[in-house]
């Protein structure tokens, strides 16, 4: 199975600038393994040390969030598009603002 993985802009340094990468695999997990072989370091941005998806990253298979399918075990087929979509969030609430000041140069 050949699947196209769409890469968001901030992760493109890991794909040598490519906005999409074609890799093989029968499940979303296998696709990420193939992607890691081609673009070292990218799987760690999507999955944690246990190999499960990070909380703030989504994978969409075509138009569907794979969390609503079978997660990383979701089957993929030839020609599918797997998009890495960040869960971008934040907010004005200051939280521990002192630590921010401490870390700013």
């Amino acid at each position, binding site marked *: 199975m050949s699947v196209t993985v769409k890469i968001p*802009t901030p992760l493109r340094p890991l794909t040598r600038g490519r906005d999409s990468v074609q890799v093989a695999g029968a499940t979303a997990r296998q696709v990420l393994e193939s992607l890691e072989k081609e673009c070292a370091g990218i799987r760690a941005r999507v999955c944690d040390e246990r190999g499960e998806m990070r909380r703030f990253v989504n994978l969409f298979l075509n138009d569907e969030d794979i969390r609503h399918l079978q997660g990383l075990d979701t089957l993929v087929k030839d020609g599918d598009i797997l998009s890495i979509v960040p869960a971008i*969030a934040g907010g004005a609430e200051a*939280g521990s603002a002192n630590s921010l000041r401490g870390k700013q140069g």
Partner: protein
Amino acid sequence: MLILDPEAENAMRDHTESGYPHEVCGLLLGRCDAGSEMRRVAEARPAANLNLERAADRYELSPADFLRIEREARSRELEVVGVYHSHPDHPSRPSETDRLRAEEIWQSSESWSYLILEVASGGMASRRSWVLKQGIFAEEEIQVLPFRR
């Protein structure tokens, strides 16, 4: 450096002011010139804030909107070069919440701008742009110039 098209800036101003006192968010579409830290923004696209419980001081940009807007950008040979969000009645500097969530996703994202717009009841008060470098937000200069391909 972030270069904003004047119409994109106006669109963000309208969005943040009409959303007040809630936080609003959206994506910046444009070009990131190869080998340069300069991002040129052609358009600003509103996205849904999914955090309804704390809409006054939190945002969570809809992943479905991200997917839709990114697709549109690609089809027009643009890319998503950053995100904007408003800070109602708060300064336009990143909160620790902003930093933690940015770091968790990207670690470092020198090719991506976080534009923050301070908005009060009288309208937009300030806007500043930030880049995450090794877990720390550094401010970047903003210029307003018409976008040219």
